[in-house]
């Protein structure tokens, strides 16, 4: 059971309150109908699935019900940071290099 810091509730809460919601920063194209089959495949199916730092979405389903983003190390399952939807992807290149 992970302990997850919810950026809206501003505290760490236990995993059963949350739902993982897949990779973060995959925006739905505004002109989605104009995407080629390859582009649509990339948007809908292809995932980076990194061994190391993953940017992912969680929903505080049984808490504030907000979706938010997180950076988590998929080797240790430790969170580096969680942040609100709409805030830019944090630059963790330093962390990633150190891995």
């Amino acid at each position: 059971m992970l302990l997850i810091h919810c950026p809206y509730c501003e505290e760490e809460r236990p995993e059963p309150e949350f739902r993982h919601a897949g990779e973060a920063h995959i925006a739905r194209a505004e002109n989605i109908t104009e995407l080629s089959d390859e582009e649509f495949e990339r948007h809908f199916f292809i995932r980076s699935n990194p061994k190391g730092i993953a940017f992912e979405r969680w929903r505080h389903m049984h808490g504030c019900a907000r979706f938010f983003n997180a950076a988590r190390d998929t080797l240790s399952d430790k969170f580096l940071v969680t942040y609100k939807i709409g805030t830019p992807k944090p630059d963790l290149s330093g962390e990633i290099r150190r891995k």
Partner: protein
Amino acid sequence: MRKYSVFAIAREALRGNTGWPEQWGSPEPKKSYDVIIIGGGGHGLGAAYYLAKEHGITNVAVLEKGWLGGGNTGRNTTIIRSNYLYDESAGLYNHALRLWGGLSQDLNYNVMYSARGVMMLAHNVHDVQVFKRHIHANRLNGVENEWLTPEQAKEYCPPLNISKDARYPVMGAALQRRGGTARHDAVAWGYARGASDRGVDIIQNCEVTGIRRGRDGAVTGVETTRGPINASKVGVSAAGHSSVLMQMADVQVPLESFPLQALVSEPVKPVFPCVVMSNTVHAYISQSDKGELVIGAGTDQYTSYSQTGSLAILQHTLDAICELYPMFTRMKMMRSWGGVVDVTPDRSPILAKTPVKGLYVNCGWGTGGFKATPGSAHVFAHTIARDEPHPINAPYTLERFRTGRLIDEAAAAAVAH
């Protein structure tokens, strides 16, 4: 290869079992091979074995970053069955089931394939509809699968609770009698021994750190922790780590890796005669030849390579086990473990050529790869040797995610109403 037999055992017994030869060699890697297989699990070792045995390609190396069979091969609950819905799945898994039947003799290694029957429980009207759809499709596809009433299910598996008052009453079951289990380690070791005997180099503790490509983009070899190795054909068979490897060749795959856990109980005298799966309540159980109840749990919700999972997942599974078999609460969990499973969007594997010439991939088996081991290895070897898929794995392409021609077994069991 020294043949295993009862006579060999008797002979060795008299000399204190000191004369058994190595089951497989541990050579230093050569500079170059015809084919490199990345991943020393059942699928990878099997592919090397069939490359040598059926295609005469023996200048082959299997590179394993840890120890043979240490990935999902050694971490699963060893369920074998082939009663899948779609023609594509039935073809692949039934191919595997046929090979399981003769695998011990073929390898001269007893993989202890035990056709004790796999029973899948239906707990509501929707389950009944779905299972019957499977049974009808299986019958017309020549795949054995039959419907049991709750009473017949109880007769086949006496500990089963078929009370109508159960939270999820058993409304019937689909039984595949030729389904069952096998000894997971023996599958890896048997293939390793067979491949090694035919000249394949099995190289453990050798992690691939890069995939080399020539000017034309074609594969030329791999970088490893033990130096570069050349090969014009590379087959990736690395389960949960397939994404990482494929990215080394700039191939993006639709995969996510999740922790999957399993557990065994303390050993008890035989009490559970078959394999029972209940998808509705997520409970998968059989009893090993040592007497342990072997119980498969679900995946955690988040992606991870940590090879651990949360206690809550085990609790959830045991809730269901104790609901279906209420006498088991006094049993004890003796050991639990986690693996990393690679899951595709349609829950079916990718077993195919890739856009990179000379690069082949066998991945995306999710929670169910063990059962397919011989079939998958067999057609993967074919794909590598001929540079074209076997008709059985032809539908399992990477392109299907672009065209939408999915093989969606999971969706076929969609949630009711």
